[in-house]
């Protein structure tokens, strides 16, 4: 069986995979990183978003083989222990989650948005989130959360 070598959440891993295996399957099944979710089979919902070499990708739409040599960060690796990344903290602050199922993908996607655009407008946020479906929140508080996170992160950056 072929295998892939990746760095996942800072750790080197080597996994045997079927050529047809998806990155999300390897993360959830082989590496037991169940924070990354699967909400659809047409690459529409974004529940599966992780970072690959620093950019958000839908891990249901990446073959595990394509991730060979890549650096992957999942929701479990976004912050350590009881700490929270500013985006995670802002989602809690603004009540940007309800059932939590879309949340890991939303957070990973939002973190990528803020890395690219530290001060997005509401329109830019809403447009960026098109690839992440949430059925619970109506997006109102997710937008608020991203605004709060943008604020915290830019204040932090200015202080540094």
């Amino acid at each position: 069986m072929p295998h892939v070598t990746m760095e996942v959440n800072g750790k080197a891993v080597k996994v045997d995979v079927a050529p047809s295996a998806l990155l999300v399957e390897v993360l959830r099944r082989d590496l037991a990183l169940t924070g990354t979710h699967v909400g659809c089979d047409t690459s529409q919902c974004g529940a599966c978003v992780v970072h690959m070499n620093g950019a958000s990708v839908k891990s249901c739409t990446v073959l595990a083989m394509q991730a060979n040599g890549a650096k992957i960060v999942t929701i479990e690796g976004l912050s350590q222990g009881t700490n929270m990344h500013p985006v995670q903290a802002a989602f809690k602050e603004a009540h940007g989650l309800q059932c939590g199922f879309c949340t890991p993908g939303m957070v990973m996607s939002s973190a990528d948005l803020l890395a690219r655009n530290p001060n997005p407008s509401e329109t830019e946020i809403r447009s960026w989130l098109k690839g992440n479906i949430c059925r619970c929140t109506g997006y109102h508080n997710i937008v608020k959360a991203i605004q709060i996170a943008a604020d915290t992160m830019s204040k932090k950056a200015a202080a540094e």
Partner: protein
Amino acid sequence: MTTGTGIGASIKRREDFRFLKGLGRYTDDMTMPNMTYCVFVRSPVAHAKLGKIDLTAASKSPGVVAIFTATDLEAVGGVPCGWLVTDRHNKPMIEPKHPILAAGKVRHVGDPACAVIAETYAQARDAAEKVSIDYQELAAVVDMKKAMLGGAAVHDEAPNNLCFDWELGDKAAADAAFAKAAHICKIDLINNRLVPNAMEPRAAIGAYDLATEEHTLVTTSQNPHVIRLLMGAFVLGIPEHKLRVLSPDVGGGFGSKIFHYAEEALVTWGAKKIGRPIKWVAERSESFLSDAHGRDHVTHAEMAFDKDGMALGLKVDTLANLGAYLSTFAPSVPTWLHGTLMAGQYMTPAIHVNVKAMFTNTVPVDAYRGAGRPEATYVLERLMSKAAAEMGMDQAELRRRNFIRKFPYQTPVAVVYDTGDYDAHLDKALALADYKGFEARRAAAKARGKLRGIGVSAYIEACGIAPSSLVGALGARAGLYEAATVRVNPTGSVAVMTGSHSHGQGHDTTFAQVVADKLGIGIEMVDIVHGDTAKVPFGMGTYGSRSLAVGGTAIVEALNKVIDKGRRIAAHLLEASEADIVFENGAYQVKGTDRKKTFGEIALTAYVPHKYPIDKIEPGLEETAFYDPKNFTFPSGTYICEIEIDPATGETQIIKFTAADDFGNIVNPMIVEGQVHGGLAQGIGQALLENAVYDDNGQLKSGSYMDYCMPRADDLPSFDITTTNTPCTHNPLGVKGCGEAGAIGSPPAVINAICDALRDYGVMHMDMPATPEKIWRALQVAMPKAAE
């Protein structure tokens, strides 16, 4: 108290940490040793006789453990229906068997004919593709009006596909009211079929322990005890003490995870058969074909008014689609959850509702966020705005004239409203929406070549269906109470076992606030336990916005018992009479003295009963309460939607959406706002985007996120929401429920706004979803007229 962590405080949710860190535990996150995987072979056609099922190739496929068909399940019951509707001729509804796997016939695209179990998913999928089934196709019943004419029948028991013909209200009185009318407003409308689409697809794991003879089912359910009851008693014949049902973190429900589904029974039954755990997880395209859908009504309605705009009477005739089989609560939705809401906020003295419920070769239809109440509200609120336009009256004013202002109020459609103040939220919404300034904004938009419209909707909701004696008389095959156990530990921490189930509602926070507030202890001392029949004594679960009003009240009742027992212990310790002891701020105090014992001291004494009236009071501090409400609760509100249409493209933009809701008392305003946001998104989705479309052959054309338009972040505005408060009069918290309001009140507000924008074009109604194409086409037809 609005500070700290008690009732009324917007504290942050305690469950968020695990969800934000990727530590949630949903059904698909769990594995069991030696687990196998199940894939269902589902019918690709809507209606067919099942010929030969050839398993030869599939059985030889690598990794296959077992393949089951209906023949293997002959000793197993069908999926039961939990509500028996009696029709207007006093006949029980027709209730055909709903087999776990299709027997003899398949009745909708997605009907499972066969279950393939293998060592891995990939192997199960491969083997499933090798199952060869001879489908002998029959004419599909899709359109409800055609279904009534006979010909093809979904079930032999119902030759014209009618399940029941139900009515409510006084037809003669309504006819008499219409005879006196100065104006009659008529409408034909469709309440579009929706797919609930909780983001977590349904999943189930069945397991069997030969040593203890215990079955376990882990399932994505809103009500694990209900599943245990239905599946244990009616399908598999497993007594409760040998069947444990767990619903861990569940990723949204919106009604679709109330029902007992065939897949749950198959994995539970199959796990014993093969002696290994079986897991099934729906793929999204499978969810579209197997989760119960919502809505799907075709309605003609008329409303009679006198010359001053006072409503005299209402007549509603509805065809309700039940799909191919009766889902768990399906019969209650277009009847007792729909007809009873037709008075709305108005004094309409005579109402008659007729509902004909039809079988069709489509996915079963059952409760979806609001369940019957959005359908009723849509009919009534479309009629009010259309009538106002026809009579040349203001739509807000027409509503105000007809408001009920005396409570309790007996409606002509069976229910009694305990309380409400409809002027209060209308006023608040009008102010927040700057309703007065609208005509200026309309004119400004017109100058830019855009069409602005404003739509009002004033909804009433009935939550926490109750009491059990009443719902029993109406056909419910269950009670609708809730249970809670409060276990005080020796050191004063508290575990609350609740029968309610949280799948996004935030009970871990809200319920803990109630407990901390009532006991005067820190919220970190309170643990909320739910979703496991082995841990929670009993429960009816979460749906119909009932959790706080019914489940929360059960907790309060159990807390009261705890507090009372504590008082008896305190009286002994403080050598005072019970009547002289008050419980306040977490301590029992002898009135008028400073002698007191904290709740923690009493808890410890209860478990270390050295100085204790042991002959009078048992040790320990744990109480259970079952609470059966005296009535429904009746939240209400006013929603105002302002939209702008680009006539060149037909596109609608929501400029402002205002919601003013009366939910009674509120425990956590932040969570309540979140519930409203989510409901609004689903209601606006119904009005503008979502539609489950079947073709004439019964193929679901919108069966994925490519074709079924889910509301996305850029389809929606931020919302302007506020609340008013008339506390519920018959539960101790004074709460009413907030989960469904947004989805109930918003569709008519949006469509009323669109019709208002298009009024100069003579468009008096537009069916949902009001897509750009529909609007653009309507404008093309109307354009010449308006141009004059």
